């Protein structure tokens, strides 16, 4: 192949391989960080907004609507105060609901939260706006002491339909946690993945949950008590911690017309905490949004630093290259072409960094998405937005080119005669 500008640039980069690799790596880290943050931001928003599913109103006695959503939808912790069954019935019958599903939380199994509810949880409530529940193996629970596993729980524990387990009262790390050894649960099914926090929960029947807690109460009062059945339950035992509700509306409509009226009337009850999960998610995302703006600003700072690294690498190489530049000038290379060679070399360093950054992004985003799924049960699918990607790529190459301007000016001004003299 004939000599070309590209030969000169590639030879220059390969002759300083260590410097080239470390400089490109600096750019790659910055680009990878930037792309990961940008894609996870969008994917995270999607995942969070999927969390509420088709529920419009969440009723609880949590301290705030936000806490209520975090506890009841994202299983952040056990709701601190209960709602009596009678109160639930009063609410359910007093409003035009399409569904009002009682849920109770507080127990766990090997760190995974347990949600006690009714079978209509799987018929009426949908985890995503349009996503139905699917059963991967077995079936949904039908009677007390049957449990169905979220997909993540099944993966992590290796449990299968037919296995028997004991639940822990309270979260595993809470001081009053203890295992309910008197009652074993039978695994009857494993749910398909929903991509929501529900994937890391276990679901069981409300009645069994009431029984094991009533048994605790009765045993405390009278240690000779050895068994508790549904017949032993009192009104005080029948408690729930939340209500997943949706007002009746036109089929297919995402939000019903009655929603605002019902919401306002429920809010008038001072004993209840009433949350609109969608609205709480927006609030949460606006807080998170500010944090990720800070991260993105940091990524920009890292990117600018990598630009400075390019400039330094080229600047330091100029001393060694003065003779080469002088020789090229003697051979007929013009000063603007020398300038162009250095700026192009700088831009290529940026491009190498972009390529490395994409690799880092694909690895990094995969790792973060995996961690989010494992820790939060949030399934996020990091996708590169073409516009953002193009902006990051173009911005990086532009920044790299700008970083090459100072060394290129040095090269442009290299005195030829002085640099052709014999060394020594």
């Amino acid at each position: 192949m004939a000599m070309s500008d590209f030969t000169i640039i590639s030879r220059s980069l390969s002759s300083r391989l260590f410097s080239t690799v470390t400089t490109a790596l600096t750019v790659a880290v910055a680009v990878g960080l930037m792309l990961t943050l940008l894609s996870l931001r969008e994917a995270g928003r999607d995942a969070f907004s999927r969390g509420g599913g088709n529920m419009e109103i969440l009723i609880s006695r949590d301290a705030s609507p936000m806490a209520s959503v975090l506890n009841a939808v994202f299983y952040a912790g056990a709701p601190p105060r209960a709602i009596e069954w009678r109160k639930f019935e009063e609410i359910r019958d007093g409003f035009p609901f399409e569904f009002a599903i009682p849920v109770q939380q507080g127990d766990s199994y090997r760190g995974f939260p347990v949600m006690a509810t009714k079978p209509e949880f799987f018929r009426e409530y949908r985890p995503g706006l349009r996503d139905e529940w699917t059963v991967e193996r077995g079936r949904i629970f039908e009677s007390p002491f049957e449990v169905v596993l979220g997909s993540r729980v099944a993966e992590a524990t290796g449990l299968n339909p037919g296995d028997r387990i004991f639940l822990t009262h309270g979260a595993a790390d809470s001081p009053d946690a203890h295992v309910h050894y008197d009652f074993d649960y039978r695994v009857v099914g494993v749910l398909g993945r929903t991509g929501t926090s529900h994937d890391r929960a276990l679901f069981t029947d409300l009645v069994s949950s009431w029984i094991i807690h009533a048994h605790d109460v009765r045993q405390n009062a009278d240690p000779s008590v050895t068994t508790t059945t549904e017949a032993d339950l009192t009104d005080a035992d029948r408690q729930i911690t939340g209500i997943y509700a949706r007002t009746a509306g036109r089929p297919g409509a995402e939000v019903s017309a009655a929603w605002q009226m019902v919401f306002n009337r429920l809010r008038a009850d001072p004993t209840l905490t009433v949350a609109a999960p969608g609205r709480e998610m927006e609030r949460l995302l606006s807080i998170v949004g500010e944090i990720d703006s800070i991260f993105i600003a940091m990524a920009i700072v890292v990117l600018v630093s990598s630009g400075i690294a390019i400039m330094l690498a080229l600047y330091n190489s100029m001393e060694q290259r003065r003779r080469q530049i002088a020789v090229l000038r003697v051979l007929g290379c013009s000063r603007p072409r020398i300038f162009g060679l250095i700026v192009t070399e700088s831009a290529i360093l940026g491009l190498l960094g972009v390529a490395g950054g994409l690799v880092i992004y694909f690895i990094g985003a995969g790792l973060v998405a995996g961690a989010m799924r494992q820790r939060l049960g949030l399934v996020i699918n990091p996708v590169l937005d073409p516009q953002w990607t193009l902006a990051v790529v173009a911005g990086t190459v532009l920044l790299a080119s700008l970083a090459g301007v100072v060394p290129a000016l040095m090269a442009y001004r290299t005195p030829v005669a002085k640099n052709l003299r014999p060394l020594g």
Partner: protein
Amino acid sequence: MTQAAALQIQDLKFRYPGAATGSPWVIDIPALELAPAEQMLLTGGSGRGKSTLLQLIAGLMDPDSGVVTVSGQDIHALRGARRDLFRGRAIGMIFQTFNLLHGFSAMENVMAPMMFSQIPRREHRERARALLERLGIDRPQARPETMSVGQQQRIAVARAVACGPALVLADEPTASLDPENASIAMELIQGACTEVGAALLCVSHDPAMPTRFERRASFDEIAANAHPASTI
């Protein structure tokens, strides 16, 4: 129409920037001419300004006054990139330390000036290969820094004549060589110039050199106040 002289110098005066007005000129040459394909040796002691003269002729420095014409073109009348391009096409240079491009093969060194010439790209490789072969380089893909000094000299010669220049300027081309290799190198340089039809202006203070040139002059002889017909 007669062919333009390879080199014509008229009233060339040069003093280093910053030198006091009225201080002696470093270069002061009333007239000097080289016919096409003519070869001339210019001798003189160190620090006499021989290299400076070559750089003025190549348009790497600007004179205070006077005209340098290479192949009919006043080189200092050209500005910026046009002068660089003209130099690349019309003038070949050979240096005492060769000034080869490190990190590039012998072939690439010879092809480098062709990048800036009008020679079609597809011919570069073959042209460089043939030149190196004629000059006895049997490892054209090897890097010059892995070769002997004599071989490096050959590559420098090949590079200087690669674009078929009208004028080759050789600055102490044998200073790094022992007498035997110096003689071989000069033979190569002169032979290569003759082959491509380039005039050769060689500056040197090598005492063995004058016998190789029909036309020779000392720096003092061509300078102002010397006899205008400087040929010995």
